[in-house]
């Protein structure tokens, strides 16, 4: 079975997660729901416009939500349901396809158009085959009821399968899924917080289904894939019961999962806000570190605010996060990220530049190696202060070197001989500003537009031969986006 590119689905899922995650915050802040909708619309527009991915479809905000209710039945092929579906398809939903699956998966994956306006009765584990030959595999038995209004998409773990088939609609289901649904329905009735792992797994697999090219208006398509576990069915059941709260809860879970410490930068080319979903850029295949979900939850709101507000500081945040995530423990990461995202060095530098300090950290005597603990920021300040001080102290000779007639040279800026022991003539030529000593003749010779943003497993160098072992990344090659779980590379410098 050929899979279409996972990128559009991934992006969609990211957008959904982010929007849902901030919905609460927006409400708290008193920002209108319309703003959120506009944001989402804008985001999707940008992604589509950037043409970084194909087959990306905007979700319509005003389309009715959809939940599919499947009566629990055994394996059967429901022609009637299929017929009803076909009818719906005839309404213009021709992308709605299904195909026979060899091994019937557990559960039902269902894709529904937003324009479908009536509840559909389908047996559990129903698979639909749309006319034009695209397959949506229904893996999880879903209860679909038409929910009113609001643009909250039901999030399900999703596996979309596009398969060009011209078969008639065939619905197949697995009993196990039905059974599980029953169990999970009961289990999840209390809307207890599901195990984080589950939520995370779901989050990883979550991709809201989306309509094919022609149908932009689809927001309620649900493509689910319960390849993971029972909890997915729980979600379904929970959703059935109380859509809003459930969804929100789910979204929290998902969002929690989204912001796993592996905050590789989620760079959607046009969207700096997408940085908030950086954590979602886990590899689509399901690699996921779920180490500190509690931290994640705390981190979620922090990150959302930070990242959305500080959209333009994306790169720095990401870099810092990467450093943090790579170097330090998980506990330290959120702290570092929270800290480092806000106090940006650039801003601090500009503040400090007005200060001139003559002693203490401003002392320009040569120091030994400064211990590089976590006092990086302190060291940075020192560096900036020093550079400023040197300008100010141009005429002052504060240096206590072992050899020092160099101070004369510095102040005068002219040549002078440094009388070090056993040194050949050292001419203190001032470094010509861009005159002879041409620096960076190859300045930005590879300032290409092809970018890869990912995490690294190992970077190795021998002489000038580099080897890269990367993971969990997104690439923008010639304007097109690709995602990968693992990547290796060789390069020569």
């Amino acid at each position: 079975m050929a899979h279409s590119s996972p990128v559009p689905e991934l992006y969609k899922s990211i957008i959904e997660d982010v929007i849902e995650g901030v919905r609460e915050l927006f409400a708290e802040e008193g920002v209108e729901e319309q703003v959120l909708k506009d944001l989402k619309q804008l985001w999707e527009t940008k992604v589509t416009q950037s043409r970084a991915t194909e087959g990306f479809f905007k979700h319509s905000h005003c389309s009715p939500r959809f939940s599919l209710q499947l009566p629990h039945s055994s394996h059967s092929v429901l022609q009637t349901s299929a017929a009803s579906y076909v009818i719906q398809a005839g309404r213009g939903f021709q992308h709605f396809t299904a195909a026979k699956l060899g091994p019937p998966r557990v559960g039902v994956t269902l894709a529904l158009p937003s324009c479908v306006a009536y509840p559909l009765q389908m047996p559990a584990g129903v698979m639909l085959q749309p006319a034009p030959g695209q397959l949506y595999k229904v893996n999880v038995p879903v209860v679909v009821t038409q929910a009113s209004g609001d643009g909250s998409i039901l999030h399900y773990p999703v596996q979309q399968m596009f398969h060009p088939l011209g078969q008639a609609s065939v619905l197949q289901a697995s009993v196990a899924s039905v059974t599980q649904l029953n169990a999970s329905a009961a289990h999840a009735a209390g809307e207890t917080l599901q195990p984080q792992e589950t939520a995370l797994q779901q989050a990883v697999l979550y991709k809201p289904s989306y309509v094919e090219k022609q149908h932009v208006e689809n927001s309620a398509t649900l493509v689910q894939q319960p390849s993971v576990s029972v909890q997915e069915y729980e979600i379904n059941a929970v959703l059935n019961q109380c859509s809003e709260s459930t969804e929100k809860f789910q979204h929290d879970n998902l969002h929690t999962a989204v912001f796993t410490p592996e905050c590789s930068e989620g760079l959607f080319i046009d969207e700096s806000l997408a940085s908030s979903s950086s954590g979602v850029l886990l590899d689509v295949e399901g690699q996921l570190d779920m180490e500190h979900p509690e931290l994640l939850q705390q981190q979620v709101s922090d990150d959302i605010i930070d990242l959305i507000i500080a959209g333009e500081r994306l790169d720095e945040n990401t870099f810092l996060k990467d450093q943090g995530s790579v170097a330090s423990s998980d506990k330290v990461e959120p702290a570092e990220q929270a800290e480092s995202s806000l106090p940006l060095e650039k801003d601090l530098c500009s503040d400090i530049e007005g200060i001139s300090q003559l002693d203490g950290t401003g002392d320009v005597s040569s120091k030994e190696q400064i211990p590089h603990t976590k006092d990086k920021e302190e060291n940075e300040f020192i560096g900036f202060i020093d550079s400023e001080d040197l300008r100010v102290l141009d005429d002052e000779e504060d240096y206590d070197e072992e050899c020092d007639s160099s101070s004369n040279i510095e102040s005068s800026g002219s040549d002078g001989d440094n009388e070090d022991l056993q040194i050949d003539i050292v001419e203190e030529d001032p470094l010509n500003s861009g005159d002879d000593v041409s620096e960076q003749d190859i300045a930005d010779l590879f300032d290409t537009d092809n970018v890869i943003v990912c995490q690294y497993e190992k970077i190795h160098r021998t002489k000038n031969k580099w080897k890269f072992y990367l993971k969990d990344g997104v690439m923008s090659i010639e304007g097109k986006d690709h995602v990968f779980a693992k990547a290796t590379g060789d390069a020569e410098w």
Partner: protein
Amino acid sequence: MDADSDVALDILITNVVCVFRTRCHLNLRKIALEGANVIYKRDVGKVLMKLRKPRITATIWSSGKVICTGATSEEEAKFGARRLARSLQKLGFQVIFTDFKVVNVLAVCNMPFEIRLPEFTKNNRSHASYEPELHPAVCYRIKSLRATLQIFSTGSITVTGPNVKAVASAVEQIYPFVFESRK
């Protein structure tokens, strides 16, 4: 029978190591973030910056000391060091190019004949040390020049010294002794 004092041998300088100071504290992190062609070794507190033009690698410490390796001549070493200081200056540090010093020169020289090492060692016990089980070359030190030569039985000699001159004179000095013990 002895070799001429003027040896027409090709001495290939393979490496020149030099140091200089920037006279200002360097923020390694800033260099690592903004510099081009840098490797940040946070664990040891160094930044490596590689240059292409004179192909050199510089090790930079936060104290402002910089060690520059990989040049093939003293002039090139100085040139490269200045370029390096230049690029540091461009990053925003008040760099002053001071204390430039070539600390080590590594050269290779090939004798047109092979050498009998045990014999050579016997004749030059004062300066030569030979442990064939440890290393296949004779280590000959010239104290006056502060140069060390490694003499291989193939006739290839590796010389390290504080500067190019010392290296050249070391080769000249050793030539007669080596010539004695040739095969």
